[in-house]
């Protein structure tokens, strides 16, 4: 037997408080009015005639009190929500499935005069369960948010379990009950059957993809989980929806193409509460304040805006600050980070035939450009992009010229390399053509960033053109037809260099005359330089991402550095903040992770329904019963108080007292029936029933003058 509702101390306090009250009322009831009489001897004669035995007299005086104490005991134990988990003789196997998602950090669980987090409340309940286990019961601690993992093996030692439990902490990831239950199911699939005890705040959208029974085919959901036969218990948390929650749901930044030092920041926030809140959002770049904006959000409102900021730095951070008296119970979603995109600072080397259109377009771009005739080209010219000194070039544009050796460093743009037939082609040529061609495909509905705002629809090619054969990991940029005649491709070298090949001469096309040509060149240079024109968004926590980087260490937001091995790494950021990949201690790449989950930021507990969309597959056998329906606490509390009031008035003498006591019993009966219909059939229902029956017995015996 364990109690999932009130703690033992709280139950004892309640019992002491109300027990004292009952005792006081009983003493008041026993307090007899003093009536002076002159015919005392007559009363004596009458009483002696109807005298009962001493035992009967003693019993009848305490019977009513005992009944009342029993009723009180039943009610207090009911509030404790007793569960007969260890009722069998066989040892139990329990999976304690703890929700460690971000919403569990919300500090809205009343604990005395203060509030504790949902996680602390869940841990306290789990601790109670562990302490009540029998010696041979096996327990496994499993946590789940976006992903689930075992935190212990099957343990029988309560000390080990408690030690592991204390080490756990909630993550910053959104919750996914399906993941947790799937994991628990897998854990229990081996070995003897066991029970799953679920500790969650149910602060997420109702699960639509978990089914009790066969999964209906009509149910169109991504993951379908059939938990038939799973002995599942839900331990609800005593959440007091005292405040609101403000959350950042989007943060992204991009540099302005023409002004890399200025960026455009996309910001979105939501008020998941019900009341209007004034808030302020502060933007910081590398920890330095840059800008603030005030927002006023009514309940449920989402607000998005774009703001231009000077973005000279590596990290952008947005912080929400509540300016109202409303309490923001969850703080993890009040901060979001974004790693600012690298600003392209191209140091270009133009090698090849003169092309005024091309050169003019390049002159519009930020950065420097050096022009070298083909005959003057040496690999050494790359070392100093600005003669005689300067940094090495990082972008080479070969216009209809192919050097003897392809430079091993620097990104490259090759414009019609096949125009130099004598040279060894850096890209495998498929066909050559001298026909007039039109470019019909530039990425379809999802064009490459290079083709952003660029149209090749009316471009005519009349000179010689070359189509390329795609190598592995090459990506087509432009195609003449649907058969795959590739006129332009993109290639990323293993060393990280980027190459772009264009299979036609710009001079032999009217593309250079198009107004989109400078935009194309801007996009081309930006992409080749490794800069994307779009927003660099922050990564949602818990979402797995694949990284192919030459690194050997990963630095977490809290400063912890973990070694990593291999080029490929899948990272599901568990915490919000900035993660840095290091190579021998030097930063190579950074990513930012933020919660950014509207569902997770809706921290109000939702009805924990596990069903298909239509029809709901709800069965009484299902043991997740506690939070299946919204209990209307206020009317029920009012009914209980009215019942208590009526019962107290039931101490009045005569018919009025009887009527009041009857109404009191009726109020309690209505509460019991309401709860019975609303919740289910757990143990406390029997207790409430017993309390009600005892109440009726007490009422009946009292008013029949049996117990007095």
């Amino acid at each position, binding site marked *: 037997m364990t109690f999932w509702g009130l703690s033992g101390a709280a139950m004892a306090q309640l019992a002491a408080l109300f027990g004292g009250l009952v005792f006081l009322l009983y003493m008041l009831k026993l307090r*007899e009015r003093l009536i002076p009489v002159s015919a005392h001897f007559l009363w004596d004669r009458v009483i002696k*005639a109807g005298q009962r035995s001493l035992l009967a007299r003693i019993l009848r005086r305490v019977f009513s009190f005992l009944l009342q104490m029993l009723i009180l005991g039943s009610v207090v134990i009911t509030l404790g929500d007793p569960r007969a988990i260890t009722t069998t003789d066989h040892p139990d196997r329990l999976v304690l499935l703890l929700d460690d998602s971000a919403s569990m950090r919300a500090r809205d669980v009343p604990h005395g005069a203060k509030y504790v987090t949902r996680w602390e409340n869940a841990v306290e309940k789990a601790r109670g369960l562990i302490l009540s286990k029998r010696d041979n019961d096996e327990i496994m601690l499993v946590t789940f948010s976006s992903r689930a993992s075992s935190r212990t093996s099957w343990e029988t030692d309560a000390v080990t379990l408690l030690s592991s439990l204390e080490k756990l902490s909630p993550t910053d990831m959104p919750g996914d009950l399906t993941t947790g239950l799937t994991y628990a199911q897998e854990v229990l699939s081996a070995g003897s059957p066991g029970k799953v005890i679920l500790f969650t705040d149910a602060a997420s959208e109702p699960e639509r993809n978990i089914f009790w029974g066969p999964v209906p085919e009509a149910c169109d959901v991504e993951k379908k989980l059939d938990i038939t036969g799973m002995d599942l218990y839900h331990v609800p948390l005593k959440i007091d929806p005292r405040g609101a929650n403000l959350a950042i749901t989007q943060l992204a930044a991009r540099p302005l193409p023409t002004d890399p030092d200025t960026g455009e920041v996309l910001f979105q926030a939501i008020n998941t509460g019900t009341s209007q809140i004034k808030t302020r959002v502060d933007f910081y770049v590398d920890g330095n304040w840059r800008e603030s904006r005030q927002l006023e959000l009514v309940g449920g409102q989402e607000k998005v805006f774009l703001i231009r900021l000077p973005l000279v730095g590596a990290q952008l951070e947005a912080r929400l600050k509540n300016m109202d008296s409303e309490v923001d119970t969850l703080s993890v979603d009040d901060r979001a980070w974004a790693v600012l995109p690298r600003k392209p600072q191209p140091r270009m080397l133009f090698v090849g035939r003169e092309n005024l259109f091309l050169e003019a377009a390049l002159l519009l771009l930020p950065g420097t450009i050096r022009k070298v005739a083909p005959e003057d080209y040496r690999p050494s010219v790359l070392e100093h992009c600005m003669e005689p000194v300067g940094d090495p070039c990082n972008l080479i544009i070969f216009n209809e010229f192919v050097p003897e050796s392809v430079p091993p460093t620097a990104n490259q743009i090759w414009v019609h390399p096949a125009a130099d037939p004598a040279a060894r082609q850096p890209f495998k040529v498929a066909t050559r053509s001298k026909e007039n061609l039109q470019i019909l495909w530039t990425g379809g509905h999802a064009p490459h960033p290079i083709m952003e705002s660029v149209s090749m629809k009316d471009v005519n090619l009349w000179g010689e053109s070359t189509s390329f054969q795609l190598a592995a990991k090459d990506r087509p940029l432009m195609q003449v037809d649907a058969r795959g005649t590739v006129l332009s491709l993109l290639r990323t070298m293993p060393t990280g260099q980027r190459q772009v090949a264009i299979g036609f001469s710009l001079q032999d096309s009217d593309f250079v005359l198009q107004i989109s040509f400078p935009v194309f060149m801007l996009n081309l240079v930006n992409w080749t330089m490794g800069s994307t024109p779009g927003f660099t968004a922050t990564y949602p926590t818990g979402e797995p991402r694949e990284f192919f980087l030459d690194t050997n260490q990963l630095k977490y937001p809290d400063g912890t550095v973990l070694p990593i091995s291999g080029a490929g790494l899948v990272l599901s950021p568990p915490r919000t903040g900035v993660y840095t990949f290091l190579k021998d201690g030097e930063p190579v790449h950074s990513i930012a992770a933020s919660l950014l989950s509207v569902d997770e930021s809706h921290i109000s507990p939702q009805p924990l329904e596990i069903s298909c969309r239509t029809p709901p597959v709800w069965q009484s056998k299902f043991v997740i019963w506690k939070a299946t329906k919204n209990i209307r606490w206020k009317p029920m509390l009012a009914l209980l108080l009215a019942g208590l009031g009526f019962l107290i008035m039931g101490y009045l003498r005569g018919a009025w007292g009887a009527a009041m006591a009857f109404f009191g019993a009726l109020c309690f009966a209505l509460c019991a029936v309401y709860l019975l219909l609303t919740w289910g059939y757990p143990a406390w229902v029997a207790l409430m029933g017993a309390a009600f029956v005892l109440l009726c017995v007490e009422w009946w015996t009292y008013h029949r003058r049996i117990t007095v």
Partner: protein
Amino acid sequence: MPDPKVYVSQRAQLAKAGIEESMGKDFLSELERLFLISRQVLAGKLRAERRTKKRGSGLEFAEHREYNMGDDFRHIDWNLYGRLEKYFVRLYEEEEDIPVYVMFDVSSSMLEGTPIKAVHAFRIAASLAYVTLAHLDRATMLPFTGAMEQLHPPGRGKGRMFKMFHNIRNTNLGGVTDLVQATRSFVFRRPRRGQVVLISDFLSAEGYEEAINLLRYHRYRVIVVQVLSPQEIAPKLSGDLELMDVETGQTRSITVTANLLRAYMAELQKYTESLRTFCQDHAIPYFLSPTDQPLETLMLDVFRKGGFLR
């Protein structure tokens, strides 16, 4: 729980206030009216003078008695001697006033009820005394609880009322009823034989028989007036109570139910019935007077049923 002594003292003050109020002008007017009523009721039957059984030298022939040594020769009925040849003397009724002793109970038990029984008893006693005095007889009012320390002799004339009122004012109310002691102390002082009106609730565990018999044995004509309050006749009690005997302070916890109330009322009925039967058996006029009964009704009953001022 209040102290019984304090409680009794409070009730006594209330009763005294009630009695004092009854001694006012209004009550005296009421008494005068009662006297007029009594004149109408008793007209033709009674005169101001009372005949006693004492044989003496009056004018009214009473009976014959055999001559004994020492009798006055003048009273020998010679006509009868002529017929019977035996000496008989003629006896005449002696005319004299008969004193009326109105004894009323002022013990603690009489301080109960609304109206207070002691006040009611006083009003009855005062009425009877006044009517007696107005009929030119002697009367006195004797409040009692136990043994009487003083016995104010009966007086004559309406003006006597004020002296009696003065005596009553100085009387302490409350105490344990002891009818036997009261009557014993009365008869031991050997007052003139006459009529004794005994007004009490007679609610005593020791009973009333001995007290009444004591008066009877000493040849007093007794009239019994039992005073009960409506709260005693039909108590409106319920629930858990602690009953306190106002005289002894003894308590008892009871839970009053309808059945218990019925049993109590039956017991009271039985008790009063036994008193009535006792009085009937001994030719003692008995009157039950609830305190809510108008005084006039009782007086008419007393006058009509006879026994008083015979």
